């Protein structure tokens, strides 16, 4: 009699907490669904043909986001071009040369801190070392601050991917008489190629929505500008400015920009995921 009450109590508690966890999952999914819904709803309503052809307008007139899109693409491309080689080499050092050495331990630790350090601090850092020295905001500074964000992402994925390469491959190449650098460049890098590309894609996804480091490095620019020595517009900075303004038509453009960023980020992460799983199978 007593034991059956005990069983019932335990069963009830089990049912109660498991129901709670189902609700937790529903709760999480509902919020995230709501965000995506209002993003697509408002974003699609604001999409128009002029989005890609016209410049950011003054309040009250029609326009697009062409200069902001150009700025984002240009600065991201520069950041990836500068950050990938450094990240790739540093990740190679950690996985191939350093492994268990003390310096590798420190680099790994610092890199993982940089990976989740507040991006606004990155902006302050680049402001101090570039904007202050040049005495003006510039696209170079914006690209530099994005580079600082790209490097840790690429380092982390490169190291992880290289560590997955079986040692047998390295040993086989070394037994043929290949010097270590050739083993790395011709064998391990090639074996880990898909993973390394995944890391770069994730890095692009990460920087395409970064706003805080651009606010006081590349600032903003109302006009079409390809001058890297001058302030440059970027999608996130324009969204920030337009969303905080009191103007309806600016709000619409901000939603459209937010949709563009989300679609970019989601497709990049999905591409990265497909690459990763195709390699695994």
């Amino acid at each position, binding site marked *: 009699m007593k034991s059956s009450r005990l069983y019932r109590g*335990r069963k009830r508690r089990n049912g109660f907490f498991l129901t709670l966890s189902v609700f937790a*999952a529903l709760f999480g999914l509902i919020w995230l669904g709501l965000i995506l819904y209002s993003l697509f709803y408002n974003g699609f309503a604001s999409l128009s043909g002029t989005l890609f052809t016209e410049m950011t307008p003054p309040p009250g007139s029609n326009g697009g986001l062409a200069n902001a899109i150009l700025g984002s693409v240009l600065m991201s491309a520069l950041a990836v071009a500068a950050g990938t080689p450094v990240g790739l080499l*540093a990740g190679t050092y950690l996985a*191939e040369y350093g492994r268990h050495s003390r310096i590798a331990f420190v680099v790994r630790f610092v890199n993982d801190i940089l990976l989740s350090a507040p991006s*606004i601090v990155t902006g302050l850092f680049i402001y101090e070392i570039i904007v202050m020295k040049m005495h003006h905001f510039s696209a170079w500074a914006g690209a530099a601050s994005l580079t600082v964000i790209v490097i840790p992402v690429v380092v982390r994925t490169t190291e992880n991917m290289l560590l997955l390469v079986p040692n047998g491959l390295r040993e086989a190449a070394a037994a043929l008489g290949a010097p270590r650098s050739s083993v790395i460049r011709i064998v391990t890098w090639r074996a880990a190629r898909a993973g390394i590309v995944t890391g770069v894609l994730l890095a692009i996804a990460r920087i395409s929505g970064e706003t805080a480091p651009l606010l006081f490095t590349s600032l903003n620019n109302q006009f079409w500008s390809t001058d890297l020595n001058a302030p440059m517009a970027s999608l*996130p900075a324009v969204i*920030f400015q337009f969303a905080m303004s009191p103007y309806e038509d600016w709000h619409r453009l901000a939603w459209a920009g937010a949709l563009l960023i989300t679609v970019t980020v989601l497709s990049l992460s999905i591409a990265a995921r497909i690459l990763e799983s195709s390699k695994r199978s």
Partner: protein
Amino acid sequence: MADIALIDTTVTAKRAAAVRRGGFSDARFHGLTMIAAVIVLAIFGGVILSLTIGAMPSIKAFGLPFIWTEAWNPVTEKFGALASVYGTLVTSLTAMIIAVPIGIGIAIFLTEICPRSLRRPIGIAIELLAGIPSIIFGIWGLFTFAPAFQSTVQPWLIDFFKDIPALQDFFAGPPYGIGIFTASLILSIMILPFISAVTRDVFETVPPTLKEAAYAMGCTTWEVMWRVVLPFARSGVVGGAMLALGRALGETMAVTFVIGNAHHIHTSLFSPGTTISATIANEFTEAVGDLYLSSLIEMGLILFFITFVVLASAQLMLRALEHRAGGLS
């Protein structure tokens, strides 16, 4: 005979040259990777150094009391970080209180309850959402969430808590929509996928034999989770939560949109406030005067220090777990 000997020596010479060349490029490549690794360290050192130099005028002018001074007056050039530090800590902690239990609940759902066919899609959806940039959460919070919150949940909460002695002060005041509490909610939604993804990964490192042994003893699912899986995965879950806390502390855009940017400390969570990152984002480009700018940079330094402590302890916990998992497999 002589011909063969001749060929032999040239081949040997060529091979020797190749080996030398290989050795040279080997050393050069090693050096190159090492330089890249040092660049990572240099960035970290550079951040600390440049922020300290930039913060010097403010450190000299205000000293240590900067941290516990609430005043923020650009006109009289009196600056203190307290209101921002308070906002940063309160929003992050409130977000954690909401997000950690729910995140763990989602992880339990994913590893134990969810039908196998749904596990991967839901898991992938959560990971994808963890990658959505914070500015998206910010714009959604400002235009969609805050107005809805203001007209529905907020008046109800104020009404609900108005007669409860300990809590009434925290949920008092007019429903503005934006404010500390709204910022905390947005933050919690933002770090939720992050916490559940890490927790799920940690749960999956628990050896199945442990769980099977507990089930064989007649444990219910909940008892297995609470008494076996959670204790085993504790340091990983705490590490993951700390990682999320690090993100929440430094989060800029999701907070800046909805916090109201007011340099005052109120007991009520419904009043507008500010955080370190929101203050910097809002005021940096408009800051006139060296002292103003330098005070903002010093706040950046404080933020970097706080997040460093949190992230470093998260690292140590997760790394200890990795070693243990490695030993078991």
